[in-house]
């Protein structure tokens, strides 16, 4: 870019770049390969007039089955116009959200039954006796029916608090103690003194690492395999960000340490999907 122009105003930059475009090597598109990874290599001038190479790596994913009409297919090949002609390679106008957005379903009043509200360690209570836990929150009857099956639920006053996430171990702390609106710091919430020690134990100590998994093994498969030993709070299989292929290891968190120990004893060296599993305690990451 011309140096003798002195200070360049940003408004002029784009126009100048257009004029000098013929100096740049052409755009190269590599792929998409079998993993759907596409590389686009483009060249442009930066603000100081240096030639820069911009490599954009994208993964192409099929989102919907498209049934396009003939006319629509024709429109696919229309040339860009307006501001879209000189679109900057780094502009990234269109991006796929990194966040998974779910259609959040509201809940029927009284159907929050899956959420354990029993004081103490609810999961320990569950392992003792199922019948005692079966307490209907609508009519208060014990051991007869679940809340969602309550014959008196039409008489119950409707609650307007919806649970956003499917109930898991984490939601207990955030649910309890918070009324509407006002923020309550985690340390002030009900059950805070419990969650500090107990949650840590759950996350770190009862975590089991499984290695030498086959590529086809997914989280539900591991869940199925390990559930037989006791309640599992989390199953995770490491997946390659780029290719979507399993990296061959995963973690399972048990509620009880004894269950985890039994799982290790039983499954270490167990043949699974023509590979021999290695199951061991997951050493907590040094912080």
């Amino acid at each position, binding site marked *: 870019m011309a140096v003798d122009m002195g200070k360049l105003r940003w408004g002029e930059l784009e126009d100048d770049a257009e004029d000098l475009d013929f100096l740049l090597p052409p755009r190269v598109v590599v792929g998409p390969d079998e993993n759907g990874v596409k590389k686009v290599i483009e060249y442009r001038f930066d603000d100081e007039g240096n030639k820069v190479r911009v490599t954009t790596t994208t993964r192409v994913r099929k*989102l*919907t089955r*498209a049934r*396009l*009409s003939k*006319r*629509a297919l024709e*429109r*696919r090949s*229309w040339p*860009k*116009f*307006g*501001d*879209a*002609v000189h*679109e900057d390679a780094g502009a*990234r*106008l*269109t*991006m*796929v*959200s*990194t*966040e*998974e*957005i*779910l*259609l*959040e*379903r*509201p*809940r*029927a*009043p*009284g*159907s929050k039954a899956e959420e354990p509200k029993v004081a103490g360690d609810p999961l320990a209570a569950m392992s003792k006796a199922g019948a005692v836990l079966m307490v209907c929150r609508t009519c208060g009857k014990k051991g007869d029916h679940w809340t*969602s099956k309550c014959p008196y*639920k*039409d008489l119950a006053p*409707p609650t307007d608090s919806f649970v956003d996430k499917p109930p898991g171990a984490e939601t207990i702390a955030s649910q309890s103690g918070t009324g509407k*609106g006002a923020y309550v710091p985690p340390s002030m919430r009900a059950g805070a003194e419990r969650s500090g020690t107990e949650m840590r134990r759950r996350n770190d100590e009862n975590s089991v690492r499984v290695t030498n998994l086959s590529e086809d093994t997914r989280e539900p498969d591991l869940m199925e395999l390990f559930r037989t030993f006791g309640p599992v709070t989390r199953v995770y299989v490491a997946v390659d960000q780029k290719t979507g292929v399993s990296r061959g290891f995963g973690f399972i968190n048990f509620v009880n340490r004894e269950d985890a120990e039994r799982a290790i004893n039983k499954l270490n060296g167990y043949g699974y999907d023509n590979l021999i599993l290695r199951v061991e305690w997951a050493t907590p990451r040094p912080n």
Partner: protein
Amino acid sequence: MRPILMKGHERPLTFLKYNREGDLLFSCAKDHNPTVWFADNGERLGTYRGHNGAVWCCDVSRDSTRLITGSADQTVKLWNVQTGAQLYSFNFDSPARSVDFSVGDKLVLITTDPFMGLPSTIQVKQIARDPNEQSSESVLTIKGPQGRINRATWGPLNKTIISAGEDAVVRVWDTETGQLLKESDKETGHQKTVTSLSKSADGSHFLTGSLDKSAKLWDARTLTLIKTYVTERPVNACAISPLLDHVVIGGGQEAVHVTTTDRRAGKFEAKFFHKILQEEIGGVKGHFGPINALAFNPDGRSFSSGGEDGYVRLHHFDPDYFNIDPIPVFLARGGTLKNEDFVA
């Protein structure tokens, strides 16, 4: 689902429109450039340059060759969809608020805002096949309603014009004579400004969204109120699913309050309701400003929302969306199923 985020506009979105086949998505915003996107992957196809003010509304002809846009720069412009070339510009003395092609694309309905002492109007113009023969003559001009007319659309077979706006009344006019045929009831109708109006795929009924925190479903011929969907936020946008018995409603607190409150308190979700049961079936979060525009893809398998935050979010539904059964929740809430609701 992972929505596709399209950040082509610098200012809040005002309107979204799919073409008939559902492969193109047109977006209007308060910046001056209406934009067209590929509706499957969100790639930008082009922009229509020429407006000098906020663009409030647009419509695309059935064969996807012509685009019409109404803008606050007091013009309505006709564009070639493929090239982005401006074909014609209708000039007005006040900002244009809504535009709508008739069935057959031979007429266009335009509403203008009250401005500098001029009252708001509904105007009908003819669209010439050849843009060189286009005239700016109005075939029909209707004056009467007080305040802004936010939306006007054609009734069944172009015989009537349906309008709604700041005075919260939904009106039906005769296309030939310009006479007022029907008016919504003040008691049962909306209590505050009607912000949006969206027709069903077959045009037999339509949905209006209002700042009174409700959306109402009306019969397009008789203007009888069929259903009401109550929510807890002002409604800026609404749409009817062409595939399932769903409606989607978007809105949120006014933009001036956004910075002072939490994102969750703003209720910037798109809320899905069951059209017949009037029961909420879900919410889709994501915007960090009120939702100003909503549109369903004509195939009903995706929808897009445009927000005050300047983003268009394109959502392709997950498979489980199509299997939502609202009846258990409805019954648990004490609803009773009525036979007439399910008779086609």
